[in-house]
């Protein structure tokens, strides 16, 4: 039997491996700078050591054994003391959606550390009913909020382009989300921005675990229309060929680094200062800000409380399944295994049961939003399947490698 070497897309590792401790596979891409994302880019992926344990699991060991959380909490106190306003002005910006994580972070900073946060929200593509309700409950739990909703026409265009060129419909949301807080920091001159968890929690750049802040390169740049990409297309091409104006592009473009430097903008992660545990955030948010889980589990996973506010969100995970073989149940379970909520055995059973589930609930809405036909949708999906991950047998697609 001839062994034909299978083509691998996206520069992913050709051999598929699963972490021995959690449910993550080695195909998981690391965080990238989204506004530089071109279709032909090779993706850096999560690191697996010689024992086939992923860097996220190794980091969770560090969390358990090597970090002095008492000291870190002290540092948070000092950070807050340094920035706390004395005249009633906002002293920090907390980006969020009213989900369990931002509900936790904002409540902690305001009611435990006495800060005066301005919460800022980058609107989901399409709010779900539960998403809107939780957003409202969050505000009514006692927070000032600015909701930024981008130009709908452009947002839909970018979503469609991102889907067609990158099989990444969620990109416009992700980009805008990253830009929102720095944008308001620049606008209002508020230097301190506080996020929830650092990408280190998911195994990215574990060597940066000692750093409380995000690298400015993720959110700042001298705006240059040729090197900035949205939807896999350069900003210049968007203007010249897609009828988009330079003005329209503003919310998606990184803020000028010099401007932020003058203000002294810093983006901190709460996960540096406190042991990050999403399930504990759920409990905290349920008790303090009225956060409610959904009535049904999210398609593609078993969870009812994780990331439930955008109708497009399930398609984000469906496309990660297509491109990397990793669906939502894998993301959810990997984190829960690391935090000791479920065993790997249970995680594997959950992944096998739910990961491949197609998110049919909002499919029609999604097609309408992007303005494409179902046929076109499947065209894009099928040509995005990396041959080293997928095979077609008896007319249907199946992953070559399933976790065991």
């Amino acid at each position, binding site marked *: 039997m001839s062994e034909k070497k299978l083509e691998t897309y996206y520069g992913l590792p050709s051999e598929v491996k699963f972490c021995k401790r959690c449910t993550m596979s080695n195909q998981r891409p690391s965080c990238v700078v989204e506004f530089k994302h071109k279709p032909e880019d090779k993706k850096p992926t999560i690191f697996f050591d010689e024992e086939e344990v992923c860097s996220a699991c190794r980091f969770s060991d560090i969390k358990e054994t090597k970090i002095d959380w008492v000291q870190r909490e002290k540092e948070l106190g000092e950070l807050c003391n340094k920035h706390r306003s004395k005249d009633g002005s906002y002293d920090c910006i907390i980006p969020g959606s009213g989900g369990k994580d931002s509900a936790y972070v904002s409540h902690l900073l305001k009611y435990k550390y006495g800060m005066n946060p301005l919460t800022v929200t980058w609107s989901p593509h399409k709010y779900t009913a539960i998403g809107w309700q939780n957003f409202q409950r969050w505000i009514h739990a006692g927070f000032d909020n600015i909701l930024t909703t981008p130009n709908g026409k452009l947002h839909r265009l970018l979503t469609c382009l991102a889907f067609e060129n990158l099989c990444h419909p969620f990109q416009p949301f992700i980009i805008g989300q990253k830009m929102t807080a720095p944008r308001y920091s620049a606008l209002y001159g508020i230097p301190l921005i506080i996020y929830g968890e650092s990408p280190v929690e998911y195994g990215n750049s574990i060597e940066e675990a000692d750093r409380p802040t995000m690298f400015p390169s993720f959110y700042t740049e001298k705006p240059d229309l040729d090197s900035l990409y949205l939807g896999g297309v350069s900003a210049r091409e968007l203007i010249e060929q897609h009828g988009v104006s330079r003005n329209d592009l503003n919310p998606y473009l990184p803020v000028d680094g010099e401007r932020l430097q003058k203000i002294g903008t810093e983006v901190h992660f709460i996960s540096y200062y406190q042991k990050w545990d999403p399930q504990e955030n759920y409990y905290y948010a349920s008790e303090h800000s009225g956060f409610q*889980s959904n009535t049904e589990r999210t398609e593609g996973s078993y969870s009812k409380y994780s990331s439930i506010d955008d109708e497009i969100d399930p398609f984000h995970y469906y496309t990660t399944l297509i491109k990397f073989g990793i669906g939502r149940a894998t993301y959810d379970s990997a984190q829960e295994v690391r935090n000791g*909520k479920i065993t790997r055995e249970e995680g594997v059973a959950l992944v096998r049961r739910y990961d491949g589930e197609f998110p049919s609930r909002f499919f029609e809405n999604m097609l309408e939003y992007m303005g494409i036909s179902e046929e076109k949708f499947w065209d894009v999906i099928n040509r995005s399947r990396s041959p080293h991950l997928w095979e077609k047998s008896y007319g249907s697609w199946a992953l070559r490698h399933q976790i065991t």
Partner: protein
Amino acid sequence: MLKKRIIARIDVKNEFVIKGIHLEGLRKVGDPHELAVRYYEGGIDEIIFMDAVASLYGRNNLFHIIEQACRDVFVPITVGGGIRSLTDIEKALKSGADKVALNTQAVKTPQLVSDAARIFGSQCIVSSIEAKRAGNSWEAYIDNGREHTGIDAIQWARQLQELGAGELLITSVDREGTKSGFDNDLLSRVCDQIIVPVIASGGAGVHTHVVTMFDSSQSDAVALASLLHYNLTTVKVLKADLAENGVPVRL
């Protein structure tokens, strides 16, 4: 006169007792045997052990816990979660359980309920319904509140009685784990329509919730989890308070 029963509901996963909110976000709260004995010594009337991952694995894993519990706990024990066949029921009863609770499989094959009632007796069969409010009525959920069925919960309760269920365990998915009180509308509606005993579950946060529930519905028993597992009260203190408020309980 017949007393109202106070039942401890112990959800188990991987040898730990777990508790969540809305059947979600499950936290470990203790050891099943230890809690069962503690509640028994405190005067609990019955114990329900539920296997929280049985549906996922396709098997109930609690039989060894039941065997052990039977040695030290001399009140009725019910076991549920992933009970799919007559063989499962037989195994459960042989391990020492007095009753089994059926939910997911009963919805998929209602025949199981009638067969089980015929072979093992109705008194062994507790039909469990997870109900979530839907408009003017409630919808039945399965798989530990993960999947909805499109079936009206009240109608389903009637059907289960006809099939031969000896008792109904009614859990409110909306209230479960929230400690905000029972869904008394749901319970009254069920009790109005059926004559087999009803066990109310889901929502107790303080003693008054339990008193109000017994006052406003004809439920015969209450299954408590958060209230007991998080040490918000003890069985003794709760029963004393209930008695003082006119609820007939075994002291």
